[in-house]
């Protein structure tokens, strides 16, 4: 019954709301994993990360990426990110592919632990 949903209207900004990710960003492990992806000139601090995630420039980038995903032409970029090219078929497909990728990694980790 989900077929009637107009799913194309979901934006990355709707998922990564500033309220939703505030607590997540205060986790030091997560913050440290994100530092390498900040602009080169940035300080690698939680405050800086917080500020950048809240900046209009980051929000605009989310908006552009969402629009590009909805146009369905981001196959090559998806391959670069290690995702299936079909992840470029919309915001939901992109999010689902990231979920799927995480699940696969999880399974692999479990398999390698079993082998030990």
């Amino acid at each position, binding site marked *: 019954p989900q077929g009637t949903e107009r799913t194309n209207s979901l934006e990355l900004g709707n998922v990564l709301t500033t309220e939703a990710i505030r607590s997540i960003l205060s986790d030091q492990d*997560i913050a440290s994993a994100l530092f390498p992806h*900040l*602009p080169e*000139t940035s300080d690698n601090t939680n405050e800086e990360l917080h500020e950048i995630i809240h900046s209009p*420039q980051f929000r605009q980038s989310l908006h552009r990426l969402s629009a590009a995903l909805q146009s369905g032409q981001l196959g090559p*970029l998806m391959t670069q990110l290690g995702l299936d090219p079909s992840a470029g078929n919309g915001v939901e497909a992109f999010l689902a592919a*990231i979920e799927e990728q995480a699940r696969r990694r*999880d399974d692999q980790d479990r398999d390698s632990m079993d082998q030990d």
Partner: protein
Amino acid sequence: MSDAGNWCLIESDPGVFTELISGMGVSGIQVEEVFSLDETSLDKLKPIYGLIFLFKWQGAQSSMPHPDSQDDANDHVFFAKQIINNACATQAILSILMNNSDIELGDDLSNFKSFTADFPPDLKGLAISNSDLIRSVHNSFSRSDPFINEMQDSSAQGDEDLFHFISYVPVHGALYELDGLSSGPVNLGPCNEENWTEKANQVIMERMRKYSESEIHFSLMAVTKDRIETLQEQLDEFSGLLMSLGDADQEQRREFESQISILQYEYEQEKTKRARWKRENQLRQHNFIPLTYNLLRILAERKKLQPLVNAAKAKKRLERERSDKK
């Protein structure tokens, strides 16, 4: 207008325009947004080299009847026809830089100016679109997410707002309106260094009156001398005056001192603003895709992504139901 060579859309922001100008090798220039069209606001920004009026372009020809353009104006006014849609901000900026002999253009733009001096307007426009320097500086604001930019360019006719830029600039004792979509420069009558902004104001206000009826968005930018340099010069001047004063003239002394402290305050404000612009430009030029992807990946690995997606979808559904009911 063709799409020649992928020019990205850039944000109409004084910080972006200022960096664009210095990126082309021009020194000592700043762009400021003008919020109020009265002479006192403009006086504060002087010296002003030109004004850029921008408004949301609606495709049709301007409702403004153009005064006759001068056929011989091309001899002494740099005027280029607009060849590429997305380059109009850069074109409007160039129209001002190229028409003022006080501005230090730097080697690249000086060469460009002399190279194109005898070109007719359409060839000048073509030369701008073919200039590697101008295009690469313009595109350095492409926010380095290349896939997305190329696509945005091709879909720009959609609901992307198309802004149009017109420059007002004094050249050899006359005020000119330079609109890359017009056939040539429009002579708006004689002016001098002192009164040209006032005359430009009248023309711009007339345009605003027309456009506000049809709810067209517009804004105004001034291309000025570097504010930090201007304020530094004024500070030096007052410090000199203060030093030359005798001890007797206490009242004059106090006045100079208060002027100096006002200027110092403005100087600090300006420095802070420049630092902010620099930071904003760095963020504009940063490729945020890796950050976004890794944020989403980590959320997924910690089983936190699906709840966020579900919440976002639920919220969307609720919004839709609300709007459907209306």
